[in-house]
């Protein structure tokens, strides 16, 4: 694996983007947009996370194996949330026991 060297200039672009996104998400957070608040905040958080993972953490230039590990970590977290919510959100859908 050839080591990819990222310059400080490239890092500073990423940093600028992160700072901007933090500012945007905070400003949006002060407004009441109803359901949109959650969506905007989470989408921005995911974008920020992607920036950090891809560039600060070099996954963009990394081996497939390392990419796979990242995907696995996120996938397993999704699994935990998804199947737990399967239960929590569907309680009381019918007058069955278990509400």
């Amino acid at each position, binding site marked *: 694996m050839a080591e990819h060297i990222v310059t400080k200039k490239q890092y500073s672009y990423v940093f600028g983007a992160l700072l901007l996104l*933090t500012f945007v*998400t905070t400003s949006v957070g002060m407004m009441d947009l109803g359901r949109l608040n959650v969506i905007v905040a989470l989408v921005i958080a995911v974008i920020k996370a992607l920036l950090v993972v891809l560039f600060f953490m070099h996954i963009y230039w*990394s081996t497939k194996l390392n990419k796979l*590990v990242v995907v696995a970590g996120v996938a397993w977290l999704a699994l935990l*949330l998804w199947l*737990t*919510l399967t239960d929590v959100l569907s309680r009381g859908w019918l007058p069955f026991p278990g509400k």
Partner: protein
Amino acid sequence: MANHSLALRHQFDDVEQQKDASTFGMWIFLATEVLFFGGMFCCYTVYRSAYPAAFGHASNHLDLILGAVSTAVLIFSSFTMACAVNSASTGARNALVAFLGITILFAAAFLVIEMSEWRMLYKEGLMPGFNFTYKEFDPGHVQLFFCMYFAMTGLHASHVTIGIGILAIMAFRAWRGAFGPDYFTPIEISGLYWHFVDLVWIFLFPLYYLIARHLQG
């Protein structure tokens, strides 16, 4: 070559394999960390979906500006950490030490901000288990919010503290000249850890400070 064999441990065939293995191992550890925080994120999601109004009320007791500032501070420390890795890869020893120093400084600043937030909440009687006197809207579920808040930010803060320790050791080693352009894996791995700490906060910030504010109904 002599330089290599110093850093090469016996179980590996060559430096490349060793470096690869170390980074790969660190990524697996970070996947573990994702799941470690994941258990708490799961609790948060369940309670947030069950008691949105109480979470909205509780969320308004957090200082949004303080949260945003601490986010920026942590992101900056992540940036300087990335620069430190860059300096290490080019063999700029002084820059490496300096960037590590700045990273540690901002990590500490983050902790100071967070502790001041905690102190404020303690004084307001919003710290379950120590001083919880909140009696307004739906105190039970508001208490749940703060339980999760302190559990998650507490776990995160402990990671920040450990990170400061690791970075201090790295800075010391870098100052002693342990790293060069052909051997800086420990710096890179510590960097990965530090960015992960940043990542967690990138999610904690919106979950606690932003998305529930307007839910109070």
